[in-house]
Structure formats: structure tokens, C-alpha cells
């Protein structure tokens, strides 16, 4: 998911965005909690459909509102959005109403017929998720067979003549050594590489400590991003790395509630896709006034648009570069929102984490499949040789 557009305008624009806009530039819209996969780091704890998900007509009303507000495009995600039976109908409705669509998919429905159709539109962009440049690294996180599914989808898009679709990778300790290999895969399929930050959100909270990059890897990633410049997209998600030195391309600003937000499958509006928690819930589009009223009148969004104080970071010489980092990353690791990011490159995050409470906030909603999720790395042996309880081992998880 992209948090902010890959903006080309630096400088003063950031200051204007800081105080919020009358309408989002873009927003993330998760159409369903249903998913064929069970990725260990899923931001939205997706798996099973929620019976209260927005109907086709309600979705079209949302699109009408976005058209009126002149929201440029929506980043559609989920769950796996393409499993909704009305998915293509909604994509067509959005583009016919001048709302561009970029959707994230694991590729499960991207057949050659679908690819041909997508290649024909300027107003639809596709983002294929892949978290390992090899099946071993990818499938450990996203599940068995998911690498093959994504590669087939990219092959279909490439064969259909779709150029410049996105290959979207969440950076982890396991895949940072594969940066060049990801670039090679993107190049092979005429795609653009998009790297984003692992957040401790949703099920990601359970695996963050094992998956997030080491300090050395963060430096390696920063240098790689600087070397590749605007060829590689980041959803502007690595602005905390700007405290290494020069800023990365794009908006170096947390856009939550200011220029972006999230609409979830049941119509709840959150400040950002990484903050599905009641503390960041601004309202619901089913309430009177709909999305427009939530965006313009929510007290939560008003507070996010107030000038930053910087808190504990104010005295740090790098504050103007990183602006304290990611709100969601702090929240779900138990850190105060006005202090350092847990991955602060100046080292303040590690110290803060050591002092943080051991119980961290849990996501407010969980639609995970009722089964043992994929485990990272090697599966551990049964707790006891006679253990038959399907939940065995789960108690040991964080």
C-alpha cells in the first residue's frame, strides 16, 4: 500500500501538507478482509470476510464522494481485493468517475485475460506483492505457492504489454540481501520496483521483532535507495532513514489524516493503513455526512493536522529530517507518539524500546483465518511428541 504519492515537488509543499488538505490526495481503501493467503505480517490481520463489508452500492457511493472531492486515486487493497465478486465492476465504476485506481494483489486472479484488460487502461495501475526474490524467502512470509502465483501474474502482465506496473516488496531482515535480485525481477517484467517499510501493525506486531531490518541493514537499504534515486518507489515510507543525511525522493512527511487515510472494508475510516486501532479511528462512512464529513470534521484528524511539537525528539538535530518517524510503528511497539521511532537511525529508538512496556497495544479487529499461520523459518518440532492440540505452540508466540 502506498501511503503518499510519489511526489516530485519538494520544499514548501511539505509545509502546506503538514496542516492538511480539504480532501486527501489519495487514500487506501481495503475492500475486503477476505484473503486466500495468511501472510505473517498482514497489516490488517486479514483472512475471513466480514459480514458487514460495504455492499456494491455503498462502494459506488464512496466513489461518487471521492469524485466530488477530487481525490486523484485510490489504493485498493485488502485482504485480497480481487476475490470480491464485484471487484472489476468497482474498478470500472471508479475510472469512469475520474477516480484513478491502483490496486495491490498477490496475483491470484491476474490471468492472461485480466492482464490484457488491465494493460488497456491508463487509469488502472497494479501492484504485485512479493516479499522474497526467491520462493524460499517469500513463501516463509506469504505462504506456500505465493511466489509462483506472483511470478505467473507478472508474466501475464508483461506478456499483455503492461509496462510499469509495480513490484511491491516489504523490506525484512530476510530479504534486504536480495535488493539487487528484486530489481532484476522488476526489470525482467518491465515493472517498477516499490520497496516499503515493515510495520508492526496487524499480525505484523507478532513477527516484527524477528523480521524488521537490523541497524546495519537499514544503512544498507538507505545507501541502496540513494543510489537508485527515483527509479525505485518507496511510498515515501522510509522517511525515518532521512536522518542518515540527505532526504530520499518524495514527501518526507507522515501523511496520516493530513493527505491520506484508510477506509476499511466495513466503512471505518482510520488515519492510515498501518493504524487499524480504535485510537486512530476517525469515523465511519455509513454515518450521516459520509466520508466527506469524517475527513473534514473528525476531531482525531484535526489533532493530527495541528503543528508538530516534536516532543522528546525536538532537541535532536535530525528532527527536521525524520520528524520523529512513523506514528503507527511507535504505537504498536508501545512507544510514546511524541518520541523516537523504534527504528530511529540515531539509536534513540532502541533505547526507548528497551524501556517500553512489555505489553503493547493489540489491533482492534482481527479477521485472521482460524488456523495455525505460516511460521517464520523452520517450523519448530511438536512441543511434545504426543501433542495433538491444533493450537499447540501458539501460546509461545508473542
Amino acid at each position: 500500500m502506498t501511503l503518499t504519492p510519489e511526489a516530485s515537488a519538494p520544499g514548501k509543499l511539505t509545509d502546506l501538507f503538514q496542516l492538511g488538505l480539504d480532501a486527501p490526495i489519495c487514500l487506501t481503501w481495503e475492500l475486503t478482509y477476505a484473503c486466500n493467503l495468511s501472510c505473517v505480517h498482514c497489516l490488517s490481520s486479514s483472512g475471513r470476510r466480514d459480514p458487514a463489508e460495504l455492499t456494491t452500492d455503498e462502494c459506488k457511493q464512496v466513489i461518487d464522494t471521492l469524485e466530488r472531492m477530487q481525490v486523484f486515486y485510490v489504493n485498493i487493497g485488502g485482504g485480497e481485493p480481487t476475490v470480491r465478486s464485484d471487484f472489476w465492476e468497482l474498478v470500472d465504476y471508479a475510472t469512469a468517475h475520474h477516480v484513478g485506481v491502483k490496486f495491490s494483489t498477490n496475483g491470484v486472479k491476474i490471468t492472461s485475460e485480466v492482464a490484457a484488460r488491465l494493460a488497456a487502461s491508463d487509469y488502472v495501475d497494479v501492484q504485485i506483492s512479493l516479499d522474497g526474490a526467491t520462493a524460499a524467502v517469500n513463501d516463509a512470509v506469504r505462504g506456500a505457492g505465493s511466489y509462483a502465483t506472483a511470478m505467473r501474474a507478472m508474466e501475464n502482465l508483461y506478456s499483455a504489454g503492461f509496462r510499469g506496473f509495480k513490484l511491491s516488496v516489504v523490506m525484512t531482515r530476510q530479504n534486504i540481501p536480495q535488493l539487487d535480485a528484486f530489481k532484476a525481477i522488476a526489470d525482467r517484467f518491465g515493472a517498477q520496483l516499490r520497496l516499503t517499510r515493515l510495520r508492526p501493525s496487524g499480525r505484523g506486531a507478532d513477527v516484527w521483532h524477528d523480521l524488521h531490518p537490523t541497524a546495519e541493514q537499514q544503512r544498507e537499504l538507505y545507501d541502496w535507495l540513494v543510489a537508485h534515486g527515483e527509479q525505485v518507489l518507496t511510498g515515501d515510507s522510509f522517511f525515518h532513514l532521512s536522518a542518515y543525511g540527505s532526504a530520499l525522493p518524495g514527501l518526507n512527511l507522515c501523511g496520516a489524516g493530513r493527505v491520506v487515510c484508510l477506509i476499511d472494508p466495513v466503512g471505518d475510516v482510520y488515519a492510515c493503513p498501518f493504524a487499524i486501532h480504535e485510537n486512530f479511528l476517525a469515523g465511519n462512512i455509513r454515518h450521516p455526512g459520509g466520508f466527506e464529513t469524517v475527513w473534514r470534521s473528525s476531531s482525531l484528524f484535526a489533532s493530527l493536522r495541528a503543528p508538530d511539537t516534536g516532543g522528546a525528539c525536538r532537541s535532536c538535530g535530525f528532527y527536521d529530517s525524520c520528524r520523529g518517524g512513523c506514528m503507527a510503528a511507535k504505537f504498536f511497539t508501545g512507544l510514546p507518539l511524541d518520541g523516537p521511532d523504534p527504528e530511529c537511525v540515531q539509536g534513540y529508538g532502541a533505547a526507548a524500546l528497551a524501556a517500553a512496556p512489555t505489553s503493547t497495544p493489540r489491533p482492534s479487529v482481527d479477521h485472521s483465518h482460524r488456523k495455525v499461520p505460516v511460521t517464520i523459518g523452520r517450523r519448530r518440532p511438536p512441543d511434545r511428541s504426543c501433542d495433538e492440540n491444533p493450537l499447540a505452540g501458539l501460546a509461545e508466540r508473542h
Partner: protein
Amino acid sequence: MSTDPPGTFDIDRPWQVDPRVSLRPEPFGALLYHFGTRRLSFLKNQRVLAVVRSLADHPSARAACAAAGVTEAELPAYTRALSALADSKMISERRAA
């Protein structure tokens, strides 16, 4: 769509907001989003917005500037702004049908 290489903005030619660009007025000027390049840009005041919006109504970009009250002294700055918009494909040259 203009296929000219960067740096070829000619203020005496006819221009238009590219058909694939959406322009959204804002209190500070406007935001522009190009659906082909998927890039965002912005206009930083109301006068440059007036110029850009009226490009299609004038025989040249120079005429659009004049109609919006841009003086000779201000013209170099507006030329630079329009040139940057042309480089990023936000505006494109109108071709005879």
C-alpha cells in the same frame, strides 16, 4: 500527448493541460496529478493557476500569460514554471487536428 524531449518549451506555441491530468484547485494554488506518469505536482499561486487553466483558450502560452496580467518583468519566472510543467508532461503542446 507531447513527445518532445525536456527543455523544448516554446512560449509562442499553443499549449493545454494534458488530457490525462487532473487539476484540483487549493487555497494555495492547485494540485495536479498525471494519470499516465502517476506524478503529483503543484501550482503555488492563483495567478499561475489562472494561466495554466486558460492555456487552451489562447493561441500561445505568451498570450495566456498576458491575459492573466503577467508583466514583461514577471514573464521569465512564468516561463520557467511552464517549462517545468512541460518537462513533467503536465502541460502538452496542442497540435492541429
